């Protein structure tokens, strides 16, 4: 039985397809330094070499160990490249040299290594990525503590935090071989001095090499390797469509916050996701509070989001009035099953006042497993910072107005006291409290509440004139006044915040919508590129560039917000890298960050169409972290538009090629037929002349040669039209002159027809190219001579009326197929259905049309009114007619 789950998963097949053509990565994973990873890697490399594989060493650290050095001997090593950094040279793996050498397999030690500043990639694993992408197999080594998602765990028990980490995704695509020795043996080797340790770190590391630490690390390494086998197995199962059981349907959401340790949250979520084999999403909830984040907090959120992307998560930013509301909405929508959140160690007082996010979440998201991680609270100074920014003390004018209001109310209440009771007076005092709280915020509202209750107490509560209260019931009025102040100010501030958020989100949507509307109406790629640049530049207030591939010239600037901008070598390298690798490069990214520009690829599917560069004039970070999602949307939409335009162009090109091919085929057949026929006649006639030249033979040679000459002329003319090389030499031309010249030159083609000229001598001059007009007339006469019945006359008729000048060539013959008159002007069209074989390339009338239109004239084909032949008419519109009557003296 076949069920849905038995079918191969398309995603898994896609991933497999993406792997094809890529090199394979094998990682020698160790629990700690000294387990013999490098040795193992070199041995296996040497073995492959013996098996005939083209192996080179990209980079290997022997740390002076003799056994290791012995293994290197006799192997090909790509020399390292010296990178100058702060006055001294650092040797780094020469990525370009290896790419140029293009071996089958390259050995690259220490995958987690950080490259010297100024290298192409900050990290060696990125170099390895590029090698893999180039189809080169890579062997590499890594210790378990360098793995991104295990970073926190390792630090928690070894108390050594490793800065050089490698994303888990690198390991996921690799075959893993664990190089394992028991902890005791490793400690033994350490004591024998067989383990290389950097001198300065010896003390810290001796703690690291305790037996318990090594056991824990070993367990981590073995578990990680097992997990990876598990994952690869699952991938295999999914690709084959083999039914199996695995924990399906789990969806993990991690809520990112702005606190220190947000990256730890992401790594924890990654572990949960790996354990459950579920897709995971990193979610950031944008609340009104987000607007008051410090730069540090923005950076933290952005870093956590980037890390999540690197670890394989989908990222989402959702605006909402509160964190709880936003998370709940997203979790519902995404049908998440696991939620990872951080809980700050806030004071009890704070939680009582604001409520705990976690408690709220647990209450509101039933059926979702919530993982809670403790997080550090923000340093205090900073925390106060934003709180002050958020509410503030309020403007002094607010207090003055409030005080004034209270004075007015007090005066009013005193004046009316004889008709009011005490309760009504208290109600009157609500007015200034509500006004102050809603207009000037919480503090001014509280001030109003306190002052009002004091005034009420002093002026109206007995004993009047003192602040003492003898009836406890009246205390209630005071509390009510204060309570109203608090409630009103909270309510209005929330409404205001929501309105702000809504308008921000509306702005974003409006930006996107406007951008799309504009772009959708564009049909020209250059125009679209210019528009994209301008819009992005306007929205983010940055300089923008759009670079696209140009045949033979590599990546070139297609549009720019400021055309004066020039890219230097570093910028171009970043742009090219972004284009070739399909991911961001330049400032603020992980690659070639020394460039002042941030280059983001515009991708449609797997294909990179162009690269957008953004930079700030003051050389700051091009785009604020909180604006990145909007930039990403704009770029994605731009990519779609460019792809649409590209496909349209491709379609047009295909059409043009098809038309050209059709024309070429028609041309070849017509040339071979129409040229060989007269040539055959000429050759045959010349042969016959061996026995004496008769007038008929001579006439045949002459007329056939003339025909050949006409074909050549037409082909040349057509080539000129097609090449767009038609040059007009317009001059005032006398039509009677033109007709006389054409009928003289066409006299041979008109053999057997009388030519009747009906061109009045007083027709006005026309402004045309005399040569082109001559060729038009020749072709029309030639056509009439061929299709007119033998012996019938051909009429040339010139008429001037209604401001137009019409010159018609009329024959007596079969005429044109009714309803298809216009078709005769198509290239290589000859009237079908005629029982006479009539020579001609079918180019003549197409040339007439092209020439006539080039001169601003039109040509019409019709049948004579009595259906006894065809009439072709050249129409000279009013603007071609020369009006100037020459002065008497001039002529």
């Amino acid at each position: 039985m076949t069920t849905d789950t038995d079918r191969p998963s398309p995603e898994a097949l896609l991933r497999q397809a993406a792997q094809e053509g890529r090199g394979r990565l094998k990682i020698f994973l160790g629990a700690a330094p000294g387990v013999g990873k490098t040795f193992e890697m070199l041995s296996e490399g040497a073995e492959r070499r013996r098996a005939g594989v083209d192996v080179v060493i990209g980079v290997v650290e022997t740390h002076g160990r003799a056994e290791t050095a012995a293994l290197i001997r006799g192997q090909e090593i790509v020399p390292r490249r010296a990178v100058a950094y702060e006055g001294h040279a650092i040797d780094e793996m020469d990525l370009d040299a290896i790419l140029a050498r293009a071996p089958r397999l390259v050995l690259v030690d220490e995958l987690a290594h950080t490259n010297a500043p100024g290298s192409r990639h900050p990290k060696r694993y990125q170099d390895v990525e590029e090698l893999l992408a180039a189809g080169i197999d890579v062997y590499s080594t890594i210790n378990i503590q360098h793995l991104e998602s295990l970073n926190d765990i390792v630090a928690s028990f070894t108390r050594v935090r490793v800065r050089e980490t490698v994303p888990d995704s690198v390991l996921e695509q690799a075959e893993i071989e664990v190089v394992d020795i028991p902890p005791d043996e490793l400690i033994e080797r350490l004591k024998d001095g067989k383990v290389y340790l950097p001198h300065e770190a010896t003390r810290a590391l001796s703690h690291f090499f305790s037996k318990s630490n090594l056991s824990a690390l070993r367990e981590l390494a073995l578990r990680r390797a097992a997990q990876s086998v598990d994952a690869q197995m699952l991938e295999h199962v999914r690709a084959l469509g083999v039914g199996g059981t695995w924990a399906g349907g789990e969806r993990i959401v991690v809520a990112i916050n702005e606190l220190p340790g947000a990256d730890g949250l992401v790594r924890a979520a990654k572990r949960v996701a790996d354990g459950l084999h579920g897709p995971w999403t990193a979610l950031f909830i944008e609340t009104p509070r987000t607007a008051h984040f410090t730069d540090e907090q923005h950076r933290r959120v952005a870093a956590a989001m980037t890390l999540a992307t690197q670890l394989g998560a989908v990222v989402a930013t959702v605006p909402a009035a509160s964190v709880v509301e936003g998370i709940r909405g997203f979790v519902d929508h995404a049908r998440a099953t696991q939620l990872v959140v951080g809980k700050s160690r806030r004071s009890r007082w704070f939680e009582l006042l604001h409520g705990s996010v976690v408690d709220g979440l647990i209450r509101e998201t039933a059926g979702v497993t919530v993982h809670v991680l403790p997080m550090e609270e923000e340093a205090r100074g900073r925390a106060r910072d934003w709180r002050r920014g958020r509410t503030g003390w309020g403007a002094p004018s607010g207090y003055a107005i409030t005080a004034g209001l209270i004075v007015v109310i007090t005066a009013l209440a005193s004046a009316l006291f004889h008709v009011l009771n005490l309760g009504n007076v208290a109600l009157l005092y609500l007015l200034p409290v509500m006004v102050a709280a809603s207009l000037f915020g919480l503090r001014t509202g509280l001030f109003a509440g306190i002052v009002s209750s004091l005034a009420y107490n002093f002026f109206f509560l007995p004993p009047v004139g003192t602040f003492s209260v003898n009836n406890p019931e009246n205390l209630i009025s005071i509390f009510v006044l204060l309570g109203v102040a608090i409630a009103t100010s909270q309510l209005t501030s929330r409404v205001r915040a929501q309105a702000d958020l809504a308008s921000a989100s509306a702005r974003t949507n409006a930006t996107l919508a406007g951008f799309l509307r504009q772009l959708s109406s564009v049909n020209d790629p250059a125009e679209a590129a210019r528009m994209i640049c301008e819009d992005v530049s306007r929205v983010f207030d940055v300089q923008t560039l759009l670079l696209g591939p140009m045949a033979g010239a590599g990546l070139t600037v297609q549009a720019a917000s400021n055309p004066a901008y020039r890219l230097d070598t570093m910028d171009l390298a970043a742009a090219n890298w972004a284009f070739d690798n399909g991911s961001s490069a330049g400032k603020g990214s992980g690659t070639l960050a020394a460039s002042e520009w941030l280059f983001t690829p515009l991708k449609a599917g797997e294909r990179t169409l162009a690269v957008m560069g953004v930079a700030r004039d003051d050389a700051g970070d091009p785009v604020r972290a909180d604006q990145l999602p909007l930039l990403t949307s704009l770029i994605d939409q731009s990519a779609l538009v460019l792809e649409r335009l590209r496909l349209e162009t491709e379609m047009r090109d295909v059409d043009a090629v098809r038309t050209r091919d059709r024309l070429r085929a028609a041309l070849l057949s017509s040339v071979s037929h129409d040229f060989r026929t007269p040539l055959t006649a000429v050759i045959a006639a010349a042969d016959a002349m061996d026995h004496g030249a008769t007038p008929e033979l001579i006439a045949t040679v002459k007329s056939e040669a003339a025909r050949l000459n006409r074909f050549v002329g037409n082909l040349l003319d057509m080539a000129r039209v097609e090449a767009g090389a038609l040059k007009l030499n317009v001059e005032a031309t006398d039509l009677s002159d033109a007709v006389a010249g054409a009928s003289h030159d066409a006299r041979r083609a008109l053999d057997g027809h009388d030519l009747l000229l009906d061109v009045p001598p007083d027709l006005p001059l026309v402004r045309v190219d005399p040569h082109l007009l001559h060729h038009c007339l020749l072709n029309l006469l030639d056509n009439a001579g061929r299709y007119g019945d033998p012996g019938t006359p051909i009429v040339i008729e010139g008429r001037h009326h209604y401001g137009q000048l019409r010159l018609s060539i009329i024959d007596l013959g079969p005429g044109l197929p009714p309803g298809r008159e216009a078709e005769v002007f198509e290239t290589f069209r000859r009237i079908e259905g005629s029982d006479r074989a009539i020579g001609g390339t079918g180019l003549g009338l197409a040339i007439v049309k092209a020439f006539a239109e080039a001169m601003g004239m039109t040509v019409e084909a019709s049948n004579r009114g009595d259906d006894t032949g065809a009439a072709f008419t050249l129409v000279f519109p009013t603007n071609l007619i020369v009006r100037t009557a020459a002065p008497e003296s001039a002529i």
Partner: protein
Amino acid sequence: MPAKILVVDDEIAIRKLFRNTLERAGYAVVDAMDGRAALAVAAAEAPSAILLDLGLPDRDGLSLIPLLRLNGDAVILVVSARDATDEKVAALDLGADDFVSKPFDTEELLARLRVALRHRGVSETTQRVVRKGDLTIDLDRRLVCRDGAELHLTRKEHDVLAVLARHVGRVVTHDRIIAAAWGGDEDARIEYLRIVIRNLRQKLEYPGPVGSVIANELGVGYRLRGDS
């Protein structure tokens, strides 16, 4: 002694054809296949006429015209497959006497050659009375007669006809006609010339076909047909 003709063409078939045709017509023929040879032969043989192809292997035929002009009084007839009007005008302006387009009508070529040789060495005919069929054009007296009856021409018609008659049988470019007939009149335009020619034809050709007396060279100029 027959007049000597120099044929300059890079195609041996064309040279052979010219040699046949011209020798049959009673001329002596020498030939050259490129520009350098043409200059050498022209200097050594001092031909009466040169038939010059413009597409030569070593240099542009146009550049040869002033050199040939400088080193002799041969009549130069350009025979070329190129049919760009501005090239024809350039050839005439550089000093060529006439041009014939390939492929050409042999009889027409011989007729042009005869006319050119007749006026060899003089840029204008010294004849003061030009006869063409039943027309008589008296240049000095500004009289045009047909069958002895005087035709009435306007001043401009006279001027235009006079410049054509002085170069009878040869093409005169639009610019030259306009310069001769309208002089420094800046307003003078080709339209005026067209109208004048049309009127002349009405008077001189009618009822014969258009172009029987004054031939039109497309985009280049006009020619008063010579008697041949």
